[in-house]
């Protein structure tokens, strides 16, 4: 049962991470969202209006979203497994009276 959970989670992470790695492979200019923001600040180039995001900013946005989703799924997996173990222990204690 645990193996199935791990496999399902791995598949979910792979689905989420795929666009991130794909975008990383196609665009290696930006290391992360903050590096891109730093570059924009240092360059003092007129920023694009917020309504029309550039291709670079979209890539960074998807990448940050992927990282946040991976962090969340990691935490969710930990909480889910902890919940299951606590429930199993509660059942065991109930059976023992």
């Amino acid at each position, binding site marked *: 049962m645990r193996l199935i959970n791990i496999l399902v989670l791995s598949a979910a992470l792979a689905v989420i991470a795929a666009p991130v790695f794909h975008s990383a492979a196609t665009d290696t200019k930006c290391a992360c969202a*903050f590096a891109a*923001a730093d570059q924009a*600040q240092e360059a003092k180039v007129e*920023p694009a209006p*917020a*309504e029309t*995001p550039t291709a670079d*900013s979209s890539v*960074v*946005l*998807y990448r*940050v*979203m992927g990282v*946040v*989703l991976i962090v*969340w*799924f990691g935490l*969710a997996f930990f*909480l*889910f497994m*902890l*919940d299951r173990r*606590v429930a199993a*222990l*509660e059942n065991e*204690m109930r059976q*023992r009276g």
Partner: protein
Amino acid sequence: MSIKTIALKSVYILMPATILLAFLWAPPAAILGDSSRIMYFHVPLAWVSILAFIVSGILSVAYLADKKGRFHGLVETSYNSAVIGFVFTILTVITGSIWAKISWGVFWNWDPRETSIVIVLIIYIAYFSLQGALAGNENRGRIGSSYLVIAMITLPFFAFLVPRIYPSLHPDPIINKDRTVHLDAAMLTTLLVAILSFSLLYAYILFLMKRITTLKKRIGDYHAAD
């Protein structure tokens, strides 16, 4: 499965939904651009920090008022709530610092809001030190609960009053002086969903910790009976 369990476990769906809404649906803020999306994590984290500290304070009041000992586990739950509040406060500071770096160019500049959150953190670090130092003391619960009540009383001063009195670089609070919300409808919806998700996450972790505390106590009693 009870309604409470379903409500708490809905966090598994609501949180990814929040992330997708924050990055894909909500529009970027006019001046701040895409960096403003961190608001959907920073503000709910700050909200849950305050909520957790208030809950720990209220539970402490209940414990001190409960002379007959009718309610069990109040001290442990208030401690757990303070722990969650502390962790969420650290996350609030981290997300705030990232936002500050993007908007102001530095991670930290002792803004009134930053200074007040540091003081709140110190107050709760002192509480954990106190709890550690009083291990084995029979008055630990009472002393700790009294401290949490005092800490809760100071909280509105540092969280709400100081940032409004002194000039600050920090953006206006969501509910500002005009008592209106200056947010686009999509942004406001995303923020409310985020606040609900993070509040549910807090409640879920708190109930999980409560179950673990109860189990530890029962296992301890079981071994003591042997």
